[in-house]
């Protein structure tokens, strides 16, 4: 492990040394979910000027740590930064929001669910649509695979976690069907009148119906206002006195061009 780390560090420092002759390098690392949009932003940014942006997807926790320790100029997180993770030297910038829609079949009469109801459906405690105001039909809960970013965020927001031997694990019922990817969940829910699933808001189309949560429809406006609760921020962590090149990239992301890309990629712009 240690030797691997040293090799990686020395390889990285050689890269830095090589690139520093030509231009400055902005290092970004963290959440796998944010990496997707960040790579698009980096690519477009590099086309406009000389600095190089290096994006590494290592996970939110690792990204937050990297920003605090200064190993990356910018850390990415696809969840709120916990109080225990905060410190004096870094600031948080929310670059975008990502909504998660709870979707049912178009034939389903249920149009609104409370957070508690969704939670109980996924824990396997509510098994019939009539318990939540629908027809007397069984519920088929569909979830993403363990480790998926969307599932992780959904579990965090809905409180669908529990502890086994002091390790946090999912509270989603093992009887729930598991589909890999937004597309697979969409197909399942679109074809099964009893199904319920959760997908990234950008993937919702006419083939299935997104239910409103606590009376608020799953729309960009409701996520911006905070009325629709199942949303997660894409947080960037930077030093209070960031390097000039990092600040410049940050300004680009938060500026009109960057935010337009965020909206283009199906996320919710914040500026």
């Amino acid at each position: 492990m240690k030797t691997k780390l040293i090799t990686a560090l020395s390889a990285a420092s050689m890269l830095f040394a090589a690139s520093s002759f030509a231009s400055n390098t902005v290092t970004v690392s963290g959440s796998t979910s944010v990496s997707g949009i960040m790579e698009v932003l980096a690519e477009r940014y590099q086309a406009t000027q000389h600095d190089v942006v290096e994006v590494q997807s290592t996970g939110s926790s690792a990204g937050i740590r990297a920003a605090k320790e200064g190993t990356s100029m910018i850390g990415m997180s696809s969840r709120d930064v916990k109080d225990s993770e905060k410190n004096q030297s870094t600031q948080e910038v929310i670059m975008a929001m990502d909504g998660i829609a709870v979707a049912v079949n178009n034939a389903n009469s249920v149009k609104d669910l409370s957070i508690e109801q969704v939670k109980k459906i996924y824990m396997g405690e509510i098994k019939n649509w009539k318990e939540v105001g629908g027809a007397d039909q069984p519920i088929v809960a569909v979830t993403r695979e363990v480790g998926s970013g969307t599932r992780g965020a959904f579990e965090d927001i809905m409180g669908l976690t529990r502890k086994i031997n002091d390790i946090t694990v999912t509270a989603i019922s093992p009887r729930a069907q598991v589909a890999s990817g937004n597309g697979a969940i969409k197909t399942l829910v679109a074809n099964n009148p009893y199904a319920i699933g959760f997908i990234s808001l950008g993937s919702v189309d006419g083939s299935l119906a997104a239910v409103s949560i606590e009376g608020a429809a799953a729309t960009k406006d409701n996520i911006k206002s905070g009325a629709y609760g199942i949303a997660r921020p894409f947080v960037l962590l930077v030093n209070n006195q960031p390097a000039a090149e990092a600040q410049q990239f940050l300004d680009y992301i938060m500026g009109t061009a960057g935010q337009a890309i965020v909206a283009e990629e199906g996320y919710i712009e914040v500026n």
Partner: protein
Amino acid sequence: MNQTIAAPTQEFEFKNPALIDALNQSAQKVDWVGRIFNLLFLVSALIGVISVATIGYFLVLEGLPAIQFAGLTNFLLGVDWYPPALYGIGAMIVASVVSALGAVVIGVPVALLTAIFLAEVAPKWLANMIRPAVELLAGIPSVVYGFFGLVIIVPAIESTFNVPAGSTLLAGIVVLAVMILPTVITIAETSIRAIPKTYKEGSYALGASPMFTILKVMLPAARSGILAGVVLGVARAVGETMAIIMVMGNSTAMPGSLLDSARSLTANIALEMSYATGIHASSLYSTGIVLLVFVMLLNTSLLVLNRKRVK
């Protein structure tokens, strides 16, 4: 039999002085072509062996931490799959075994009867139409089988058995049964055709009917080939991944009946591989070890069955 073949060859050599010359000449030189080909054969054979050894080595190396973490008994018999806390693949072992056995129960009789039909019963023109269709079945990618299952089998199960979700063990069994057909049919037909004509002629000469001959003489004579086909079919069923992910629902809970959703060992690896880290990733390698042991047991059972027959 050997003698009848050997006699004419000797005569043939004797009458061909040109051939004897050529043989004498090549005996004096070092046979480089022969040596190169010998080496080529050896290297080719080694590639397969080395691949198996490497795969086995890395599976064990990567999988051991998870088995140590969970304990071998808990890992194999546990029915709770809650990474990163609990790693029990008992339910998945059951799902893999039941789906493969179910596929054999449905698929093998159909395949066997098809093989007999193709080899013995069908007129030539009909056999020539069915055989390419069976061979085409073997070439269809498994994701297409999965799609077929998703569009045809899953809704059919929903309406026939009146269950809310048709993505069940049964759907997996039906899809796997169709998938193993070409393997079993092709090998069984070949082994039925390989039986010496004398068996059939002897049976007819004793006054046996064609059906008696097929069922009591031909099938027992072709037994080892047919068993090989069945074992390869089971191996295909156990190893199938993509189609199974699409039709079985992949729930981690222990299936209570054939109409429950379940997750096979292969599906478990494929579903969680992309995100897993640490012990979780290691547990997926351990799942691979279990699969490898399965296939080894299958092959061993084939050896044992064939040895019994020889005695």
